[in-house]
């Protein structure tokens, strides 16, 4: 299959590659990059730095506007993924490219199915998958349906797909974003094993700690250009972050100990029977004014359901929810807003903003019906615009004008619009769900500062996140959800490690009920 490879020289390389999109955006500018065979190369950069575009060029999903792509030591013209696959390049996309109703084995062989004369041999597919899994140490159940297996197994399926196509180069695009710490370690072990077997790995990430752990060398991109390549052993997280953003950026969050006052949110015996998804079973917890309480857990263990219940989007089946003395369990969404609840939803594209509407309109949707924006039911466009301009400058939203539809904004800027709306309402309780998902380091840091500022101004903050580093950096207290139950409560997060929290997330350890409920007052 790959007989046209030169054994010497780089496995993949770019020579003076530039990619300009139809709308004039230059995503990649004059990049020269060489990756020798058998190396794990991390490519890091902020969102929009061009790393994903560069990978698409290697995988044939995009064609360079100028310059050359070299695979196996020779310049290649890749007309599509199939030519890249034929040359031995495999890619595991950030949004996994699997067919949900197909089995693991069917997904592994899709496109190059075993069998004769147009038929598919299902037994051979299962055997092939089992053999590849055995050889590579990537454990999967070949007969399980993909929509019924864990995210980690789905990702292993993606890698097996590439192996089945005899990939010599494996591109992993943000592979750890959806994994637990344990799954991440397993993935890294498998990637190292593949490397030792001669595989060249391109590892895209903006989690610098992981990059330091897994890669041999690191290439840093900024604004479409390659800033530099360094041996991982010589790099620190700080030096890499500085290269990425072009300034020294401190990732640690400045956070004084929480000054809590009265309890703002009280949840007792909260139960929810989900028609689809995870049900909740008897949750008890408090969040006080002036503290950030983190909620950790593997995704899909009830975090989304909890957030949507607290925001009023779902009705609990049983239990009490009090926000500053108001019983919110029976209220509609508007009632929740009136009770002083702000909500940053995890899926900002679907639930956080109206994508085709302007920034200005998105910033007023929760207050367009009252002064100063409206009087007697009539909206004042000037007031709306002034309001938008103020928030755009306060929250450093990068846009030429408030009338721009939010769809045109980058992930980080769109999230800033949502956060600006929710925080400028001065919430008593803020529910922030996956607040930094898919945003770059600059915007991430900005969100962290704003959350801490809201806390210091007396808001109770419930922070739900899949990113343990983020939870540990921001939370004054931490809860762990598993299978719709609270299984751990840490009242002091100092010295708490990701590994330790991971044990509770995975069900290895569990706090007893007494520990979970101590100090929770009776509510009337």
């Amino acid at each position, binding site marked *: 299959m790959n007989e046209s490879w030169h054994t010497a020289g780089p496995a993949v390389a770019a020579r003076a590659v530039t990619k300009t999109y139809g709308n004039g955006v230059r995503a990649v500018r004059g990049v020269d990059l060489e990756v020798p065979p058998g190396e794990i190369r991390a490519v890091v950069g902020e969102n929009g730095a061009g790393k994903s575009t560069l990978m698409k060029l290697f995988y044939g999903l995009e064609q360079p506007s100028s310059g050359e792509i070299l695979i196996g030591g020779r310049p290649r013209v890749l007309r599509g*993924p199939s030519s890249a696959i034929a040359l031995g390049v495999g890619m595991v996309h950030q949004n996994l490219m699997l067919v949900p109703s197909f089995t693991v084995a069917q997904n592994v062989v899709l496109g190059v199915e075993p069998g004769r004369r147009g038929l598919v041999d299902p037994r051979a597919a299962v055997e092939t998958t089992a053999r590849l899994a055995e050889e590579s140490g990537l454990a999967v159940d070949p007969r399980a349906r993909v929509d019924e297996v864990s995210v980690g197994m789905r990702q292993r399926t993606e890698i097996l797909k590439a192996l089945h196509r005899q990939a010599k180069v494996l591109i992993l695009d943000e592979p750890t974003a959806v994994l637990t710490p344990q799954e991440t370690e397993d993935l890294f072990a498998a990637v190292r094993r593949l490397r030792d077997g001669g595989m060249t790995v391109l590892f895209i990430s903006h989690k610098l700690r992981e990059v330091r752990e897994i890669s041999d060398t690191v290439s840093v991109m900024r604004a479409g250009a390659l800033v530099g390549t360094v041996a991982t052993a010589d790099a620190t997280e700080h030096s890499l972050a500085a290269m990425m953003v072009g300034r020294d950026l401190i990732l640690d969050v400045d956070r004084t100990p929480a000054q809590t006052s009265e309890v703002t949110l009280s949840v007792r015996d909260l139960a929810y029977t989900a028609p689809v998804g995870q049900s909740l079973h008897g949750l008890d917890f408090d969040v006080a004014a002036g503290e950030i309480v983190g909620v950790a857990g593997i995704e899909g263990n009830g975090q989304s359901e909890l957030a949507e219940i607290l925001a009023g989007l779902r009705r609990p089946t049983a239990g009490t929810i009090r926000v500053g003395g108001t019983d919110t369990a029976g209220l509609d969404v508007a009632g929740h807003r009136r009770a002083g609840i702000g909500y940053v939803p995890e899926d900002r594209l679907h639930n956080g903003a109206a994508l085709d509407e302007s920034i200005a309109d998105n910033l007023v949707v929760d207050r367009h019906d009252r002064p100063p924006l409206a009087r007697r039911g009539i909206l004042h466009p000037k007031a709306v615009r002034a309001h938008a301009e103020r928030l755009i400058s306060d929250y450093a939203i990068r846009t030429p004008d408030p009338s721009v539809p939010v769809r045109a904004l980058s992930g980080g800027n769109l999230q800033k619009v949502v956060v600006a709306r929710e925080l400028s309402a001065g919430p008593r309780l803020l529910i922030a769900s996956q607040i930094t998902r898919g945003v770059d380091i600059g915007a991430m840091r900005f969100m962290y500062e704003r959350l801490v500022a809201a806390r210091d101004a007396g808001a109770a903050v419930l922070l739900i996140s899949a990113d343990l580093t983020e939870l540990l950096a921001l939370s004054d207290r931490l809860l762990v959800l598993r299978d719709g139950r609270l299984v751990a409560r840490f009242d002091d997060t100092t010295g708490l490690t990701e590994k330790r929290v991971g044990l509770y997330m995975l069900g290895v350890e569990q706090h007893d009920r007494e520990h979970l409920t101590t100090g929770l007052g009776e509510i009337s």
Partner: protein
Amino acid sequence: MSSVLDVVLSSAFLAAVLRVATPYLLAALGGLVAERAGISNIALEGQMLAAACTGALVAGYSHSVALGALSGITVAMLLGLLLAALRLELGADAIIAGIGLNLLASGATAYAVYTLLDDKGGTTGLRSGTLPTVTLPGIESIPVLGDVLSGQNMITWLAFLAAPFVAWLFFRTRFGFHLRAVGEMPDAAASVGIAARRVQYAGLALSGALAGLAGVFLSMGYVSFFVRDMTAGRGFIALAAVFLGGLRPWGVFLAALGFGAAEALAVQLGTLDVPPQLVSTIPYAMTLVALALYAWRRKRRGAGEVAAVSL
């Protein structure tokens, strides 16, 4: 009431069910193929109509039943390809494009018949003949089954073979594998180098061909002439069967058979002392009830699950 039971249990009624279910079976399986390829073929009705008209006209003028049937199927197939092109090349909404094709088929067939035969009603003035019936040797001597099966049109036999064919195509062949992958996760299919468009064009051509076979049956199996708008909503009922059958070949088969039985019942009850207006609503009422049932079941099971079934 006993007379109704007598009718329903007679072998003549069962034979009628097979005959009446034929166009539903073929069109519904055609709709299934398109749906699984990711493009809703709401133009089944128009494809059937165009095929019925073309078949009768070509057979009438060429005096070749086979040529007529092939022409009808070809026209329906081309309409399937046209729908795919409107969707894939021009980005049109498949539902709107499908409605357009249905209106086009209704108008164009009436126009063609009027232009050629100076008749606004149909092709009754043209001697176009019917497709042959099939009788397996010895089958007539089997009680009940012999009466039910003997003398059925060859397209009825094809309709009943179409369900296993589609199931085999979906789950055993590379093409079916790719078709389902493209329909469910186009990006996933494209990322492994499957030519998604080519698969979708092929799927829609097959979908049109099956609808065409259903249409040809109406004008060259059921009767031997084309009548304006003779499909009478069967394409839409077939579409209901696609979803009622849970997007699975055998499920669709059963749903289409059910609709066929309902229509056959309506026809048979017409001979009894039941108001014909009421009787003729049976297939449509059953469609509504069935779709409501389907929606209810789907809601209980959770969204998406039914749509993502496989063997």
